[in-house]
C-alpha cells in the first residue's frame, strides 16, 4: 500500500477537525476531549491527541490526513505526526488575530524540525473582523514576496474548498520534490 501522509496543523478553532471530517471517507478517528487550558475559552472540546481521516483512490493507494492537537502546547504527539508527514497545511482563522502569534510558533516549530512543503489555509474569511490574506501573511512573518508558501482560502465545512486546498498542497508538493 502506497500512502501519502498530510498533516493539518493550525490555531484553535481554525477548523482542523472539520477539515478532515469533511473530506474523509471513513468516520474520523478523533480524540476530542474537554479542553483544559486557555483553549477552553474558545472551544469546550478540543483535539487532545490527533484526528485521522483517509481517502482511498486505488487498490493500493491512499491519502492519510492527520490533524494536530488543538491545545497550545507542543507535545510528543506533534513529533510523532510530523516525522512521517510528506506535507502539511497550516489553518489560520482570519477573524482571530490573537492567534496569529501561535500560528507563527507552529510554523517555526514545524520548519525547524522537518523540511517538508506546506501551504497556508485561511478560514473564517466571512466572519466579522476577518483580516485579508495579504495582512495575515504579514502577521505570520512572510515579508519577502519570493519566499512565501501558497495561500488558499477555504471553508472547512465545504467539501469542494477542502478538496481544492488538498489539491493545492499536493501540487505544491509535486513542484518541490
Amino acid at each position, binding site marked *: *500500500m*502506497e*500512502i*501519502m*501522509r498530510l498533516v493539518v496543523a493550525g490555531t484553535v478553532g481554525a477548523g482542523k477537525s472539520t477539515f478532515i471530517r469533511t473530506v474523509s471517507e*471513513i468516520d474520523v478517528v478523533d*480524540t476530542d476531549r474537554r479542553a483544559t487550558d*486557555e483553549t477552553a475559552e474558545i472551544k469546550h472540546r478540543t483535539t487532545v*491527541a*490527533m484526528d*485521522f481521516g*483517509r*481517502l482511498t*483512490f*486505488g487498490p493500493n*493507494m491512499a491519502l*492519510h490526513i492527520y490533524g494536530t492537537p488543538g491545545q497550545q*502546547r*507542543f*507535545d*510528543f*504527539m*506533534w*513529533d*510523532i*505526526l510530523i*516525522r*512521517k*508527514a*510528506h506535507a502539511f497545511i497550516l489553518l489560520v482563522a482570519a477573524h*482571530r*488575530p*490573537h492567534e*496569529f*502569534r501561535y500560528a*507563527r*510558533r507552529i510554523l*517555526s*516549530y514545524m520548519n*525547524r524540525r522537518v523540511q*517538508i512543503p506546506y501551504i497556508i489555509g485561511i478560514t473564517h474569511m466571512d466572519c466579522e*473582523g476577518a*483580516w*485579508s490574506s495579504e*495582512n495575515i501573511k*504579514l*502577521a505570520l*512573518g512572510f*515579508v519577502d514576496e519570493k519566499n512565501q508558501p501558497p495561500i488558499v482560502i477555504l471553508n472547512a465545512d465545504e*467539501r*469542494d474548498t477542502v*478538496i*481544492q486546498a*488538498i*489539491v493545492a498542497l*499536493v*501540487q505544491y*508538493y*509535486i513542484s518541490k*520534490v
Partner: protein
Amino acid sequence: MAITGSLSEFSLPEIFQFLDQGQKTGILTIRDSKDLSTGKSLLRHIWLLNGRVVAAGDRLDNRGLARLIEQRGWITDRNRLQVERLITENVPLGINLKSLGILQPDQLKLLFSVQVLRQVCSLFQVETGQFRFDAKSDLPKAEMTGLSLPATETTLMGLRSLKDWQILQSKLPEPNSTLFNIISGQPSLRLDSSETQVWGFADGSINLKKIAEHLQVPIQKIQQIAFRLIVVGLVEEVPDIDAGMVNNAVDGAAIATDANGQIVNSSERTEISNSFLQSLVGFLQNKA
C-alpha cells in the same frame, strides 16, 4: 480596508511589528473609553509612512505640532503669519521651519521626542482599548517634524520602559522555547546589554529557562527580553516539546496508528511515486 481589533487580543507590539514589516502607510488610532491607569478616556493617532512612525497626536485638526511649538515659545509675533502659511503647505512643517531658520535641528529632535516618543511609548502601558489602522497615503504634513522612527524601534523603546507586563503575559515566549536568530549580520537596532546577552543565545542551543539560569536572571525577565527581540524581528521563538508530556509518550504512541493499525514511530518518511501523485490529483479533481 481598515484593520480593527482589541489591544487585549492583538497587542501594540504586534501591531507595530505588522506595520513595520508591511511598510504600511496610514493612521493608527488607539481608543479607550476609560484608560485604567488614568481613569480618563484615551484617544491617540499615530501616523506612519512606510512602516516608520512620523507623527502622533490626540487631534486631527492639523494643529498638534504647531501647538507644541507655541508652548515652547518658538512661535513669535514676527513669524506667526509665516508659520500659519506653512501649516497649509504640502511639506512636513518641521522641514519648512528648519529651512527657513525658524527651528534648529535640535529643536526638531526635541519636538519629535515629545510628540512621538513620549506619547507612543506611554501607549504600551494601556491595558484595554481598541485599535484601528486605516491605510492612506495622504498624511498630515502639518503634524510632521520630518523625523521618523521605525515602528519596531518605537516598540523596543516602549517595552524597555514597561513596568507592568501583565497585559502581554499571554504573548511572551514559553520558558521551554528556544530562540533562533533570523537576520544575517549584526542587528541595526542598538540593543541594551541584557538584550545583547540573550541575543547571544539565539542559536537554538538552550531554552529560555536555561538562559535564565545561565545569566542568573529571573525567567520572567528573560521572557520579556526575548519578546522584545521577537517583536523587533531579530529572533523567532521555536517551541520545544512540552517536557511534562514526554513521560506519557509511550501511552501516546499507541494512539498514533495508521489505518492499518501500524504504529507510526519511524523517523523515515516513505518516497511517493510520481504515478501516485498524478493519480491522487486526478482523483481529487474529479471529486471537487
